[in-house]
């Protein structure tokens, strides 16, 4: 963050009374209303808000990338230029040169049939009139700037050769190609794992200092805001409800909505000293008053036989290639894991994408067929169940998926969806099922008259409630919640979690809570299992995992979680530059035999090898050296294709 410019200096971007409306059947519908803010040189502004608050539309309207049926009113000035009045030709010059943009999904933003080197060099030739050899040399320099290891050898790689984090680095390199004064980053880390997110945020900050760029950061994540932004604009239903220094917004929010948003943000470490899960406080959006969350009762039946026992579970997928479908490798998605869940207990399964946590959940429901191991539900080994007796299993274990919209049939009324399990298992007659449906909808906080509506008439949070009601219909003992709150807005997330906790208290439900979000996990779980490359590396009581993490991976995961507290920025804490490793193995690969160490009561840690002794790398000097090397190497670099 560069504060070297005198206060009152000319802003890079100033937006005044911006109103954006979309044409609808009922006339012009404003999605951004009367928005004003400005960005000083070198400053980072965060636009934060929930889905539908108009933050992305604001970014698109600055770039004038709105669809044809949108209307733009008000002023947006870039330096001395009025962006709203510029002809399309002049805008094309500005896009990529003065203002660059990076998006959430780095895969779809890159052309899959061109090498990344070609794509960056193309941007350079376009924006900076370089000759092909110059562009190639500059491309290598840029790849180096965004800390892509061994940039030269990756020049001719295609986007699918890169991981998500690396692709986002390529996108940033491309954005830097035009030496922009302003970088608009629209949810750039939302699709990435926490450890990768931390690296990308770090990189953006570093580059901002080096290039003296201003950054407009669009996000829904208060943790990210606290980490990067100098000033913050909080948006709600198209309006800026609060604008100010990030520190002040977090410590003393003036608008009730900001208060409610902040109260709903789970904070890592907030649960220290507590033994049971805690409900989120409910904040009134109008008054800003928050209640003190009522405590949860002790639901865990420790002496009862476990509701779920998993031992030595292994699930692998074949990778076939060639025209004859020869098996050339295997994804070791789940490798020899064991755990158990007591009635009324929540076990959280955490880890990053590809660690096998979802496959574990799906194996338990036999949505995928495990290779070996035992899964006992109520003492009965369900892997031995013949297919036709699986219906029994599905009365005892239910699942809630990540995307509530996708998990409801778009053509069936939600009443029919909720009643479906009852009718399938012949638990009720049609009339009785209708009655039960009403009761179930009521139980999850919906009204019975909603039963006739179709899924698209509901909001995301309501849809997830419907899915919960459907799962409850057969009165299961265990619910596998696979990233069930990850796609929801913060305040909605808090409500759904409260609902899950209430249901646990009233029905004695056990949960297998699969999530990548450490802060949420800390809030809801009794015990936590950390997964890495298909294996459980650490398992134990929640307080032990969060308070006394042992395995290097658990520590790295916890260190990477963005803290929604601007006074406690990551700043000096450099994270090791690690790449995601995949669990694809060659045929005949024998998984190493693992041993576990008991740290405390019920707290087990996998013994780790020397591969975890990575020194924490300081990025900066390393880059300077590489930079020189590439300067001398580009002499023999061939012309671009």
């Amino acid at each position, binding site marked *: 963050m560069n504060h070297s410019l005198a206060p009152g200096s000319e802003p890079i971007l100033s937006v005044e009374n911006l109103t954006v409306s979309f044409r609808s059947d009922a006339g012009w519908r404003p999605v951004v209303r009367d928005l004003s803010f400005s960005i000083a040189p070198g400053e980072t502004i965060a636009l934060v808000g929930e889905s539908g608050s108009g933050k992305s539309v604001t970014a698109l309207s600055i770039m004038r990338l709105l669809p044809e049926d949108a209307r733009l009113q008000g002023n947006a000035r870039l330096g001395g230029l009025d962006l709203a009045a510029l002809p399309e030709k002049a805008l094309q010059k500005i896009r990529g040169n003065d203002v660059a943009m990076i998006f959430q999904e780095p895969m779809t933003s890159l052309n899959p049939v061109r090498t990344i080197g070609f794509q960056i060099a193309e941007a350079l030739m376009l924006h900076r009139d370089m000759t092909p050899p110059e562009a190639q040399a500059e491309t290598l320099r840029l790849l180096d700037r965004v800390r892509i290891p061994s940039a030269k050898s990756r020049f001719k790689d295609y986007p699918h050769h890169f991981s998500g984090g690396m692709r986002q680095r390529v996108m940033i390199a491309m954005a830097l190609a035009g030496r922009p004064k302003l970088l608009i980053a629209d949810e750039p880390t939302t699709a990435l794992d926490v450890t990768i997110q931390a690296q990308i945020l770090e990189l953006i900050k570093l580059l901002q200092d080096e290039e003296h760029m201003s950054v407009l950061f669009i996000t829904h994540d208060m943790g990210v805001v606290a980490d990067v932004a100098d000033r913050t604009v909080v948006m709600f239903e198209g309006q800026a409800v609060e604008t100010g220094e990030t520190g002040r917004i977090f410590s003393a929010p003036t608008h009730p909505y900001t208060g409610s948003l902040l109260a709903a943000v789970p904070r890592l470490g907030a649960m220290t000293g507590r033994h049971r899960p805690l409900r989120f406080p409910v904040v009134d959006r109008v008054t800003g008053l928050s209640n003190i969350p009522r405590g949860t009762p002790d639901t865990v039946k420790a002496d009862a036989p476990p509701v779920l026992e998993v031992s030595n579970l292994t699930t692998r997928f074949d990778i076939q290639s060639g025209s004859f479908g020869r098996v050339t490798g295997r994804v070791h998605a789940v490798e020899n894991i064991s755990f158990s869940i007591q009635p009324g207990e929540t076990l959280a399964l955490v880890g990053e994408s590809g660690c096998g946590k979802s496959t574990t959940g799906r194996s338990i*429901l036999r*949505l995928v067929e495990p290779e070996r191991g035992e899964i006992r539900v109520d003492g009965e080994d369900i892997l031995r169940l013949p297919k036709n007796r*699986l*219906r029994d299993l*599905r*009365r005892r274990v*239910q*699942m809630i*998926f*990540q*995307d509530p*919209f*996708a*998990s*409801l*049939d*778009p*053509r*069936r009324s939600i009443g029919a969806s909720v009643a*479906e*399990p009852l009718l*399938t*298992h012949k638990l009720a007659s049609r009339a009785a099922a209708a009655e039960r449906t009403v009761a179930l909808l009521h139980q999850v906080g919906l009204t019975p008259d909603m039963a006739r509506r179709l*899924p*698209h008439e509901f909001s995301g949070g309501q849809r997830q409630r419907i*899915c919960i009601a*459907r799962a409850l219909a*057969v009165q299961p003992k265990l619910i596998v919640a696979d990233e069930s709150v990850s796609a929801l807005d913060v305040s909605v997330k808090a409500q759904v979690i409260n609902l899950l906790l209430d249901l646990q208290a009233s029905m004695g439900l056990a949960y297998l809570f699969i999530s990548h979000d450490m802060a949420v996990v800390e809030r809801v779980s009794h015990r936590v299992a950390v997964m890495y490359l298909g294996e459980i590396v650490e398992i134990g009581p929640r307080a032990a995992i969060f308070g006394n993490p042992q395995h290097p991976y658990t520590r790295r995961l916890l260190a990477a979680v963005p803290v929604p507290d601007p006074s406690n920025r990551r700043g000096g804490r450099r994270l090791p530059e690690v790449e995601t490793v995949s669990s694809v193995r060659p045929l005949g690969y024998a998984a190493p035999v693992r041993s576990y160490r008991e740290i405390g009561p019920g707290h087990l840690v996998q013994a780790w090898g020397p591969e975890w002794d990575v020194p924490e790398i300081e990025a900066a000097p390393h880059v300077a050296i590489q930079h020189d090397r590439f300067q001398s190497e580009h002499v023999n670099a061939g012309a671009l294709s």
Partner: protein
Amino acid sequence: MTARLRTLARVPGAVVGAFVLMGIIGVALAASQLTGPDPLEIAGPPFLWPGEDAAFVLGTDIMGRDILAGIVHGARISLEIGLAAGLAAAAVGLIVGAVAGYFGKWVDQVLMRFAELFQIMPPLLFTIVLVVVVGPTIGVIIAGIVVTSWPQVARLVRAEAMRLKRSEFIQAAVVIGMNDRAILLKHVAPNVLSPAVVMISILAGNAILTESALSFLGMGDPNVMTWGNMIGSGREALRSAWYMTAIPGFAVLVTVTALNLLSNGVNDLLNPRRRAWL
């Protein structure tokens, strides 16, 4: 309902197609009332040009049959063939495609190889062979068209079913404990119906064309008056009295165009709604 009418108005092609088709259906239904009950009957002197005699607005053919009566009654047969073939092919394709796409693996392999067996046969040639072997009746002609055209629908439906199978609501149905049959009937079928419905009108148009081509080659059902038969018999006098081929030819053109317009429109109508849903 009014909202739906309004969206319909956004696809003018479909509206035009639907109106034209409704007109043709109306004419076909009232055929006997509009003209005589039997179009095969010799009604007047042969080779009357359209407009030459007020009693025969569209003239008469080589044998002195009323061309207007032929067109009107032929509409009935053409629509019957089109509709029957379109519906049957769509139904077979829907079932095979949904089953293949949903179950995948060897079921998919077997069904799709089977479908390819029919797909590689030239539709017209296959129907000709069938007609030669079994005999030229309307039923045989319809069967020939259905057998060669259902794989198109099956492929389309299969792709959609494969996509659906991965979607979470199908997974949710599995978790609920529904069996494959129930999932196919309650969740997969309703969601793959719209592409199949769109295909019906395209297939109907193709069936009408195939029947016309067969009749033109003299292989149609000689006992009923179809547009194809009219074109076929007019062929002999093509140079002296081209109107005998042109008029039924124009009827085929209008009907097939109307069907295509309608299917394009239905496609447009169904698509954005689906996009808003997913």
